[in-house]
């Protein structure tokens, strides 16, 4: 049995202070979201809300189509997540389990894409999407992001860890690549797939610049753009702005609660073990 020492007590103290500091901006927005307008813009600012003014939430829904912002974001993130899982797991399987001509070249091609910052391709991609008439559409928001080199690597590393004998045995039983991939590899790789799913969902959920470029109309906006527009529109009613932020944060908080274990377990393993 380990004993609770003074050093540990100190470290708990430091950690609690750090946690309060890190959490403060989020707690602050929750507090602001339930204040009345006069309380939110009063000086000196109140550290805690004096009353629970939940009408703000209703007011935000009335003011901007925040439900459709959130709906759009969820839809777009889910599409990108599923797309990335499909494309990355297929490509990762080919790299991990198949022999083919040009494998080395293909692999370095994938590696090269990780070197290219997305912003470098932003202008031509914008022009492409515009010429396809995909501005303000779900295709424009999602299709450029359906493939991921990072995810492919992560899954490849995981696939390589699975015992080779498994495939040999399946092959003996007359199981081809497609069946082995679908019915053996994928179910065995749920932890890695889960990590990639959480990661790609969060990435898309939080993306800002691309949705800013390709959406113009209110019904197509994602929550991130919606939030910053809210701020530009209603600079005086900060309580409403924060009510909107709270509504935007809550879904991703839930995602963190359920996905934290996946992330902590899988991130470094996938990115590093070569």
């Amino acid at each position, binding site marked *: 049995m380990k004993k609770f020492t003074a050093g540990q007590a100190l470290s708990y103290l430091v950690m609690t202070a750090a946690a309060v500091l890190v959490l403060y901006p989020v707690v602050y927005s929750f507090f602001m979201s339930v204040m009345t307008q006069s309380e939110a813009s009063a000086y000196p600012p109140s550290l805690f809300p004096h009353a629970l003014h939940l009408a703000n939430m209703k007011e935000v829904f009335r003011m901007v189509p925040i439900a459709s912002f959130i709906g759009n974001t969820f839809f777009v993130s889910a599409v990108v997540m599923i797309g990335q899982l499909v494309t990355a797991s297929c490509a990762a399987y080919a790299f991990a389990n198949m022999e083919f001509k040009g494998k080395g070249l293909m692999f370095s091609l994938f590696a090269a*894409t990780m070197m290219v910052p997305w912003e470098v*391709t932003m202008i031509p991609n914008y022009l492409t999407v515009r010429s396809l008439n995909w501005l303000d559409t779900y295709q424009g928001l999602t299709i450029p992001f359906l493939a991921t080199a990072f995810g492919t690597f992560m899954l490849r590393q995981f696939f390589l860890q699975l015992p080779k004998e498994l495939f040999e045995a399946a092959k003996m039983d007359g199981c081809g690549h497609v069946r082995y991939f679908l019915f053996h590899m994928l179910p065995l790789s749920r932890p890695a797939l889960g990590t990639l799913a959480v990661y790609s969902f969060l990435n898309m959920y939080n993306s800002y610049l691309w949705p800013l470029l390709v959406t113009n109309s209110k019904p197509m906006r994602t929550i991130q753009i919606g939030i910053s527009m809210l701020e530009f529109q209603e600079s005086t009613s*900060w309580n409403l702005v924060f009510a909107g932020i709270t509504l935007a944060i809550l879904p991703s908080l839930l995602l963190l609660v359920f996905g934290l274990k996946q992330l902590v377990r899988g991130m470094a393993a996938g990115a590093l073990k070569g």
Partner: protein
Amino acid sequence: MSELDKRLSLPVERTSASVRSALPLRAASLKRSRLKENALAYAFLAPSLLLFAVFLFYPLVKSVYLSLHSTDPAGRIAGFTGFDNYSDLFTSGLFVSGIKTTALFALLTVPAGILLALILAVLTHNMLRGKRLFQFAFSLPMVISVGSASVIWKFLFHPTLGMLNYLLEQAGMAPVGWLIDPHWALLSISIMTVWMNLGFNYILLSSGMQGIPDEIYESARIDGAGPLRVFYRITMPLLSPTLFFVLVVSTIGAFQSFGQINILTQGGPMNSTSVFVYSIYQESFINFRFGTGSAQAILLFLVIMLLTLIQFKWVERKVHYQ
């Protein structure tokens, strides 16, 4: 990509037919299965390759092409200009000062962000109780998007109503013009960015710490190593691959920052926060000069590649791979 598929699948038919008559049946079927595996492998790669071709390789080439031309506001090519776009960038002081701003921003955010995350990850790793709770708290900024985070901090930074200035005043200090003072703006954005990136760095480092076997710690403890010694002799070397990865990723990330700058300062005051990607955005999508915008984007690519190569060449030497 469809071309690649065709090129691959056509010989499949031909050779398998001719081979079948010439060689014994077994060798022929072996060869056929190998060709089939080739075709299948490319079918597995096809979706990714197609998407990369359209949205990554083609745009990359086109960026180079655009950067050598001038365009009209609709994005059509107006004429060939050679390297004028590039030389214009370097003669305008704005771009050069933008590079300096970006470098300073990276220096302000990357080391601080990694150090903080490292300390927190090590301390939570040694915890006996409440570990999950602290993990949740320190990972939290990761799920706060740049849009929400920026608006939250905009109000925290507010010159008269913001909490930060209120606390400064309570501590008896003069208020600071966080986002409106050219001397402070970049630092303010850096503070906010460190906070925003903490979650991601923390998760990566915690994940790396979990990969270090407990037995190593146990035997070090039995040998009488104190906590600091354990940290320097065991945690640091074994964590160095993760640390290196975090360093590379956050340096790239610092050079790609955009959202917080667009929302908090829009490059101001007096261009003191006009970082690389912000000026690409401004040039291309506000001034509609896609040519110079592309030239900047290509330079960004080169800078990031150079930095990454330097890191692999110089820093990775110190990394200990098991």
